[in-house]
C-alpha cells in the first residue's frame, strides 16, 4: 500500500503522506508554478513544470537529496523544408512521464505530440524521430486548451518494454513493437461522433482522452474516448463500445485494476460543452465485469452543487488496486482505500489539479 501521494496543481506540487490511516500534506514544492506531470518511482520523484513565461522544465529528486533541474526534452532544429507542418517544433508542455520498464528508462509524452526517451533517469532526452517524422503525424489534431496534439497516455507492456501503446489527443492509438523504430495506427471499432461521416471510424481521427491497461493482462486496455468508453482485449487492435456506463460515458480519466482485467474506474461528466458532473454530483463509476455494467460510487463525495471536472492524469491508482485518488479543476482531492467504495477528502483546498500519482516501484 502506498504511503505517498503526489498531486501536481496549477500552483505547485503537493506531497501527501499517510499517517494513522489519514492523508495529510507533508510537503509543498514549486509553489506558484504549474505542475503538468509527476512521476514517483522507487525513491525518485520527477516533476514537470509548465512555466507560463519560461517554458516547460523538468526537476528530479532522489531520496533526501535536493530537487535538481534536469535537461528539458527539446526538438531538434526544424528543417527548412518542413513548411507544411502545422505544429511547432518546440515542447509546449510535458504531459506525462512513464517508467520504461528498464532501469533508467523513462518516456515523456508532450504537446505538440513529441515522444521523448531518457535512458538515464531523466537527465537527458532524445526525441523519437520515427514517430515525429511520420507523414501521418501532420494529420494529428489539437486538443482543447493547448491547440496542439498531445500524447496523453504512454503504456509500456510490462512483459515487453519494447512494446509501447500511445493514446494521442487527437490522433488515435499508436503502437510500436520495437521501442519506437516503427509505428502503426491501430484501433478498429471506434466512432468519433463529431467527425465528418466518412472519417468517424478512421483510427487516426479518434479523440482519445486517455487509455489504461491491466498490468497483469496488458492485452486488456480501457479507453476513455471523447464519445464514450471502449475496451480492447487484443492490445488495442479492436475496440468494443461500453454503452452501459453510468451516469454518463463522457469523461477524461481512466485507471485500470493492476491485476483484474475486468475492473476499471472512471470519473464521468456531462458531455460535451458543459463538462461538469451529471446533476452536479461528483461520482466515480466502476465496472467489475469487463464493462457490461457500471456501479456509481459516491460515498464520501460531494452530492450536490459540485462542478468539479477531473482531467486525464488526475485520477491515480496504487499498485494493489485498493487505493485510488483523484483531484479536480476546483481543487478538490479525494482518496479511497477500498477500491472506490468510499472516499475521504484530506484537509486541504488545493489549486486546480492536473495530475495525481501514488508512489510506485
Amino acid at each position: 500500500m502506498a504511503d505517498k501521494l503526489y498531486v501536481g496543481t496549477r500552483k505547485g506540487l503537493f506531497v501527501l503522506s499517510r499517517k494513522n490511516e489519514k492523508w495529510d500534506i507533508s510537503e509543498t514544492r514549486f509553489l506558484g508554478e504549474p505542475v503538468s506531470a509527476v512521476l514517483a518511482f522507487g525513491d525518485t520523484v520527477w516533476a514537470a513544470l509548465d512555466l507560463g513565461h519560461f517554458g516547460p522544465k523538468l526537476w528530479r529528486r532522489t531520496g533526501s537529496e535536493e530537487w535538481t533541474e534536469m535537461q528539458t526534452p527539446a526538438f531538434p532544429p526544424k528543417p527548412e523544408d518542413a513548411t507544411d507542418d502545422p505544429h511547432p517544433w518546440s515542447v509546449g508542455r510535458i504531459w506525462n512521464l512513464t517508467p520504461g520498464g528498464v532501469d533508467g528508462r523513462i518516456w515523456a509524452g508532450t504537446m505538440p505530440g513529441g515522444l521523448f526517451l531518457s535512458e538515464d533517469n531523466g537527465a537527458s532526452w532524445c526525441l523519437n524521430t520515427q514517430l515525429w517524422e511520420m507523414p501521418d503525424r501532420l494529420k494529428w489534431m489539437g486538443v482543447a486548451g493547448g491547440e496542439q496534439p498531445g500524447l496523453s497516455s504512454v503504456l509500456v507492456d510490462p512483459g515487453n518494454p519494447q512494446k509501447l501503446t500511445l493514446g494521442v489527443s487527437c490522433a488515435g492509438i499508436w503502437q510500436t513493437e520495437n521501442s519506437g523504430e516503427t509505428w502503426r495506427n491501430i484501433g478498429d471499432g471506434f466512432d468519433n461522433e463529431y467527425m465528418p461521416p466518412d472519417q468517424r471510424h478512421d483510427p487516426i481521427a479518434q479523440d482519445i482522452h486517455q487509455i489504461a491497461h491491466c498490468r497483469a493482462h496488458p492485452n486488456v486496455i480501457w479507453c476513455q474516448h471523447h464519445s464514450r468508453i471502449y475496451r480492447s482485449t487484443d492490445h488495442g487492435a479492436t475496440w468494443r463500445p461500453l454503452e452501459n456506463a453510468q451516469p454518463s460515458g463522457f469523461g477524461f480519466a481512466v485507471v485500470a485494476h493492476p491485476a483484474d482485467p475486468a475492473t476499471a474506474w472512471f470519473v464521468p461528466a456531462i458531455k460535451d460543452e458543459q463538462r461538469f458532473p451529471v446533476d452536479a454530483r461528483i461520482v466515480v463509476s466502476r465496472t467489475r465485469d469487463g464493462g457490461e455494467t457500471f456501479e456509481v460510487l459516491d460515498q464520501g463525495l460531494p452530492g450536490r452543487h459540485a462542478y468539479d471536472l477531473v482531467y486525464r492524469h488526475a485520477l491515480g491508482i496504487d499498485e494493489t488496486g485498493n487505493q485510488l485518488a483523484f483531484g479536480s479543476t476546483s481543487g478538490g482531492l479525494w482518496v479511497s482505500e477500498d477500491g472506490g467504495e468510499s472516499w475521504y477528502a484530506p484537509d486541504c483546498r488545493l489549486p486546480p489539479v492536473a495530475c495525481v500519482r501514488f508512489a510506485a516501484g
Partner: protein
Amino acid sequence: MPTVFFTSQLARFIDAPTTTASGATLGDALESVFQEHPQLRGYILDDQGAIRRHVAVFVDGVQVRDRSSLEDKLSIDSEIHVFQALSGG
C-alpha cells in the same frame, strides 16, 4: 562590452546574474552568456532558438521585434534587458 540584465523573476528557478557579453548581435551576445550559463538558454529561447513567446527582450530601450533571427545590432556599451512579457491580467 554589452551588458545583459535578466528579470529577477528568473531567480526563482535559476541563477541569472547581470553579466557582460560579447558579440556584435543580440544572438551572439546571448550565446556568449549561455556558454557560461547553459541552463539559462531554455528559459529565454524555445527549442528553435527563438525568443519564448512570453519573454520580452529590449536592446538599448527598444523591444526586439525579430524574435527568431536575433540579429539586432549591438554597440560596445549596449544594454540588453530580458523581461517576462506581460501576457495576462
